[in-house]
Each structure stands twice: as structure tokens, then as C-alpha cells.
């Protein structure tokens, strides 16, 4: 860990230098709809700084909505030619993601690389640098502190920036982070703690208690009531920084086509439906339970981490205003 400082005035210079260096820089942009999205940006002017959380996470950089796994064409001789060209995946910098989101990358990495590494994710992840910005503001949906994180959490980021008045506190965690630092702009840090500049996020529950109680939550009678409002849309899963469900689709004809990996959601009624028509998760209650149990129990069993980072996106986006921490509290009620 290396600690440095950069003046606020130099932030745009740093940013624009990153663009100039030939990297694709993905940063939060305020859209007409009033929502903030990650987009490829050419200049710091386009970057939004006044937001609590982006509408969607930045996971699409390493795990795109639609990933072309390969394409094929029938040749003159009747044989097929397959293509799978990943060489053009560029070096990418994600700028301005919140500490919760960068910690989500830890989970994504475990999920895709721990066993049977996924070459697509691996390559994209290798070519991605995360420059996060600590949270100065939070809203009622934020609950990172309940899942063991905080608004100034450094894990997952290559670089974490924390605004401290007219300068930024810079925490460089990785070699990759170091490699993008423009030394002229950064000076060695002078002591000061970043804590006072961080948002205060109320703790909604004790993770230790939940960790224990969730073990028996599967049979809770509350699931039905807690899921009553769930309409089975995929908004929560698609906006979630750690949801990784996908579906493999072939598109094309006998002449040419491609195989695609597309985002999917365990909340969709079709997600677990068998070809026979049987569906082991036959109702929304079972599907909602699956999503929550996965975040708080199954991922702990499989990877040792809670895969909810408390970003609050699912709460903000839900058409029925379902609240994940309320749900969890209710189904683990003693």
C-alpha cells in the first residue's frame, strides 16, 4: 500500500492523461433520465461527481451483458470456420466506482476464476484497472457497513481516491495501480486521516448474527410474505454488482452465427425451468429466497465471502420497493 496526495485541480489532468494514454476510460455519466451510468468517456468534463451510486454497477466491463464466445461461418467446402478473437479487448480503466463496487470485483474474480477459470473474464480482468472514489454521501438504501465494508474500503480497488477538501487522499493497493500513476501529479501524503471525509452509513444489522441465523432461514415462514411484492423482473440482478447468472444463446443459421453469453437472472420464472416443463423453483417465493440465500449463505459456503456489498441498488431499482435488508432481517427473526 502506497499513500499519496493529488490536488483537486490536478484530478482532471490525471484523468485526461489516462484517456490520452490510449486506455478506454469508463466513468459515471449523468444521463437525461437523471440516472448515472458508467460509460466510456473522452474527457473529465463528461464525468459526473455528484452522485451517491450509479444506477448499474461496472461489472459489465469484465462481464458484459452480451459476450460473444465465438462465431462461425460455413466455408465453400462445407466445413466451418470458427472465430474467437479476444485480442482486441483494450486496456480499460474504470473510474469513480464506489468502494462497495470495487470490493464486488473480489467476488466476481473468485466466482469466475477460482475453479475452471473463465478465459473471457480473466483476460478482461487483467486488462482492467479500478480507480475508486470513496463515498462522501449515502442514502437510506446504503448498507455497506452491515456487510463488513465501509465508505472508504480499499479492498478490490487498484487505487482509491478520497476527496478531502481541495485535495484527494490516494491509496494505491496494487502494481497495476502504481503503473497508471503519473508521478508528476502526485506527491507523498501528509499523515491526515480520511475518516472524517467519509459518509456515515447506518448499520442495519449485525452480520455476525445474520451469518448464524441464516443457516436455518431456508424454512422460515416469512419468505412468502417477504416475497409477495416481487414481480419477477430482473432489475435487481441486472443492476447488482455481484450477480453472475448467465445464459448461453446461439444466434444464427446453418450458414453463420455466434454463441453468446447473456446476463440472466435467477428471479426469472424461466431460469430454472426444465425442458420437461417442470420447474424446481416454481414460484417467486422460491426464487426470491434463492437470490437472498445465495448472497448471504451459499456464497459464504462456496467462496468464504458474503456476496452482497450493500450498494443498495436493488432497493432503489425495485418496482415493488422490496428492501433486501428488511427481508433478511425478517426471515432471520428469532
Amino acid at each position, binding site marked *: 500500500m502506497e499513500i499519496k496526495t493529488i490536488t483537486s485541480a490536478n484530478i482532471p489532468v490525471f484523468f485526461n492523461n489516462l484517456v490520452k494514454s*490510449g*486506455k*478506454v476510460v*469508463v466513468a459515471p455519466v449523468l444521463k437525461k433520465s437523471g440516472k448515472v451510468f458508467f460509460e*466510456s468517456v473522452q474527457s473529465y468534463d463528461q464525468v459526473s461527481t455528484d452522485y451517491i451510486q450509479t444506477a448499474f454497477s461496472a461489472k*459489465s*466491463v469484465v462481464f*458484459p*451483458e*452480451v459476450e*460473444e464466445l465465438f462465431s462461425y461461418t460455413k466455408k465453400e467446402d462445407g466445413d466451418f470456420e470458427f472465430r474467437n478473437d479476444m485480442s*482486441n*479487448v*483494450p486496456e*480499460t480503466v474504470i473510474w469513480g466506482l464506489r468502494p462497495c463496487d470495487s470490493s464486488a470485483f473480489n467476488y466476481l474474480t473468485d466466482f469466475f476464476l477460482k475453479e475452471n477459470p473463465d478465459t473471457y473474464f480473466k483476460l478482461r480482468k487483467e486488462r482492467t484497472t479500478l480507480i475508486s472514489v470513496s463515498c462522501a454521501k449515502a442514502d437510506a438504501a446504503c448498507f455497506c457497513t452491515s456487510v463488513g465494508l465501509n465508505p472508504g474500503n480499499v479492498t478490490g480497488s487498484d487505487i482509491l481516491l478520497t476527496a478531502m477538501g481541495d485535495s484527494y487522499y490516494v491509496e494505491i493497493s496494487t502494481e497495476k495501480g502504481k503503473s497508471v500513476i503519473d508521478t508528476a501529479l502526485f506527491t507523498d501524503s501528509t499523515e491526515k486521516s480520511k475518516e472524517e471525509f467519509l459518509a456515515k452509513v447506518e448499520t442495519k444489522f449485525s452480520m455476525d448474527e445474520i451469518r448464524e441465523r441464516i443457516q436455518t432461514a431456508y424454512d422460515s415462514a416469512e419468505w412468502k410474505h417477504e416475497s409477495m411484492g416481487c414481480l419477477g423482473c430482473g432489475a435487481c440482478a441486472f443492476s447488482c454488482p455481484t450477480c453472475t447468472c448467465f445464459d448461453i444463446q446461439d444466434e444464427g443459421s446453418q450458414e453463420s452465427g455466434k454463441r453468446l453469453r447473456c446476463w440472466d437472472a435467477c428471479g426469472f420464472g424461466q431460469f430454472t425451468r426444465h425442458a420437461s416443463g417442470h420447474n424446481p423453483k416454481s414460484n417467486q417465493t422460491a426464487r426470491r429466497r434463492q437470490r437472498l440465500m445465495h448472497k448471504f449463505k451459499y456464497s459464504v459456503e462456496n467462496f468464504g465471502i458474503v456476496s452482497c456489498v450493500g450498494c443498495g441498488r436493488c432497493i432503489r431499482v425495485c418496482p415493488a420497493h422490496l428492501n433486501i435488508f428488511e427481508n433478511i432481517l425478517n426471515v432471520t427473526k428469532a
Partner: protein
Amino acid sequence: MSEFEPKIVAFVCNWCTYAGADLAGTSRTQYASNVRIVRFPCTGRIDFMLLMKAFENGADGVIVSGCHPNDCHYTSGNFHARRRWIVFRSILDLIGFDTDRITFSWVSAAEGKKWANLVDEVTDKIKAKGPFTDLDKLDGVQLKELYDEAITK
């Protein structure tokens, strides 16, 4: 480069326009060979999604044709189709889809000549408009294309 030869798909009903096209044949009326007919029992059977699929698969123009009002073999299939087209055209208009590329027509079994003229007119119109590329430009615009741009930069 040779002249642009548009791909035109015609969705026609079996009883009037298909028979009209046959009549154009029996009377040896020559017309542009850019058209390919897909035969339906009735205009009422023509799903608007098929029109979309035709454009998605590379059609430059589409003709939809059936029996004149009151002449439907099934009495009212074309009336239902007409309402559907009114609504469909309106939504395409709002979205800004180039509705000039879809030509709706009534061609009866006796109108071989009208069929030939229709095909020629539509072929000329689409030739003048050029290939339909509005949809080709859409896909893969997301991050992938930006990456490609970044590489060539």
C-alpha cells in the same frame, strides 16, 4: 460496382395477390426480378413480427398485399389486417422507422398488371433509397465497438 439490386420480400395472400401474380405470369407481363413472394392463406395471417424479421434479415423493402376490402376469401381477414397495419405503421412512425420501405397494397386475382407495376414501382423506389442499413448499424454499438475504436485510435 454494379448497380444496387434491392432485396424485396412480398407477403401476399393466397387468394388474391398470389393469384394476381400468377396472372401476371400467364399474361407474360415482365417485371423486376427483385421480389420474392411468401405465400400466406390470408393477409389476416401476416404477423407484423414477420415484417420486422424480414428487415432484420436483410430485406431492403417489403410489400404486403392481399384482397381488396370486401373481397377477402375469408370475408374479414383483410379488415383485421388493415387495422393491424394502421396501428403498426403508427408505432413505426413514432420510432422513426423508415415506413417508406413498406408498401401496402390491394391486388386482386384479376390485377396481374397492377402487381407487375407495383413490383416495378417499389423496386425503383427502393433502388433510389439505397440499401437498408438502419438496423445493421445498431448492434454491438455498446462497449465492444468502443473498444474497437480505441484500438484503431
